[in-house]
């Protein structure tokens, strides 16, 4: 009991048992293995173990027991550790998953990390690594949880980026902007994903079709000539000096993104019907279709080098 008191959990957000211990879920189809893993952590950290024997019962246990962290075996009948990791990532993004890998199974561990697992521990190293790993992962998750709470109190986020024509930064910008979609009508995973896809398409359009002036007709001849020309122009004036300017403003009611390139633009009036693909050659057909579908409002400036994307908070989500 002394260990438990000494390491009592002081985080007010923690889902705790009656004695103040952090609850964690151990998922393993082998009863001996899950009891041993659970008892190692209970003893070392003073946490409280709850158990499940496969992925499906684990998901039920997460609902009922509200564990702060999940420790799972990989290889289980029914829903295994990889599927469980993906499912928890979707339904309970703030609950980290740590995997126990069987003796010599690091390739699967790597796949699990790609599915969103926070860490893994080889089963033969449970004695030494299990408790420190869980403790460390929970500490990181706690910071994330606090950040989520803080973002939940966000009134306005205004961000500006200036990008060169390197597409490799685009996903980072998109992910960064997505994290501010926290108000109820904007924060559901589908909306976040859709806004992310629209932003990515708009940013790529600004780089390739705006600044580098590489047409999507060229792309229809194949990816290779398209990217070869884009790579050449990235280093060639006047293309190389052009930038993409991103301005985001996110409130409780809506998220708006203004993306401006420094290319020659085009005449938006030449787009009598935005869904008439015949008119959209240089803008990127698939990209614009996705943007139009996923955003609530899409506008161009008169010179055609700036696009404004607006996503409004859904009514049923309760705008504040």
């Amino acid at each position: 009991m002394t260990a438990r008191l000494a390491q009592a959990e002081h985080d007010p957000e923690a889902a705790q048992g009656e004695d103040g211990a952090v609850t964690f879920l151990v998922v393993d189809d082998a009863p001996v293995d899950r009891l041993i893993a659970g008892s190692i952590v209970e003893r070392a950290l003073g946490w409280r173990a709850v158990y499940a024997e496969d992925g499906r019962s684990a998901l039920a246990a997460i609902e009922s027991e509200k564990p702060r962290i999940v420790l799972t075996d990989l290889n289980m009948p029914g829903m295994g550790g990889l599927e469980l990791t993906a499912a928890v990532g979707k339904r309970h993004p703030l609950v980290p998953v740590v995997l126990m890998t069987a003796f010599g199974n690091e390739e699967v561990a790597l796949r699990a990390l790609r599915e969103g697992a926070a860490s893994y521990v080889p089963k033969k190293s449970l004695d030494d690594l299990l408790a420190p790993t869980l403790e460390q992962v929970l500490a990181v998750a706690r910071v994330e949880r606090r950040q989520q709470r803080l973002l939940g109190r966000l009134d306005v986020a205004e961000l500006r980026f200036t990008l060169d024509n390197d597409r490799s930064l685009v996903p980072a910008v998109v992910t960064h902007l997505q994290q501010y979609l926290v108000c109820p009508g904007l924060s559901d995973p589908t909306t976040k994903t859709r806004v992310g896809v629209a932003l990515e398409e708009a940013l790529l359009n600004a780089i390739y079709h705006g600044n580098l002036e590489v047409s999507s007709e060229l792309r229809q001849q194949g990816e290779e000539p398209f990217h070869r020309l884009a790579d050449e122009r990235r280093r060639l004036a006047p293309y190389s000096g052009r930038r993409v300017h991103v301005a985001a403003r996110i409130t409780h009611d809506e998220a708006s993104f203004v993306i401006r390139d420094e290319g020659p633009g085009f005449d938006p009036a030449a787009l009598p019907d935005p869904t008439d693909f015949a008119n959209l050659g240089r803008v990127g057909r698939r990209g614009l279709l996705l943007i139009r579908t996923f955003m609530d409002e899409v506008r161009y400036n008169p010179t055609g080098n700036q696009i404004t994307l607006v996503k409004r908070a859904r009514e049923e989500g309760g705008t504040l």
Partner: protein
Amino acid sequence: MDGYVAKPVRPSDLWAALAAAVPGASAVPPAEDEPPELPAAPDAVVLDGAALLRRLGGNAGLLARILVLFEGDCGRLLGEMQAALAEGDADRLARPAHTLKGTLGNLSAGASCAVAVRLEALARRGELAEAQRVFPQLEAEIGRLRTALAALGAAHPTSSGERV
């Protein structure tokens, strides 16, 4: 980064993934990789009772629960393996062999674990004839393990206040 021990097939990939997964982690593997894991030597001990007790924090009550769980689980897994062998189904043999291997490793039962490792490898390669020959060895080793576990349990009765 202390939290990881890895024997990566592609070290750079694995460490990059770890670094991405855990803030503050190094993307560079440690200077010394763990030696490749070998099946336990043929003369591996039936049961390392001291290691098992350490793993259980010297808790006799926990040991007693583990023994009961193992009895049930081990009988079930051996039965599944026997059925898979009878039907010549290598895929169905591999899973219980894998699960048993993990449990035996957790019990510090080196000798039987080594046989289970071998049996799982044979099942995954579809070498059923050889698996048929190895299975009785597994049963024999499990028999010795049961005896050793029973002796360990008897030496650490729960009535004397849970602690060994």
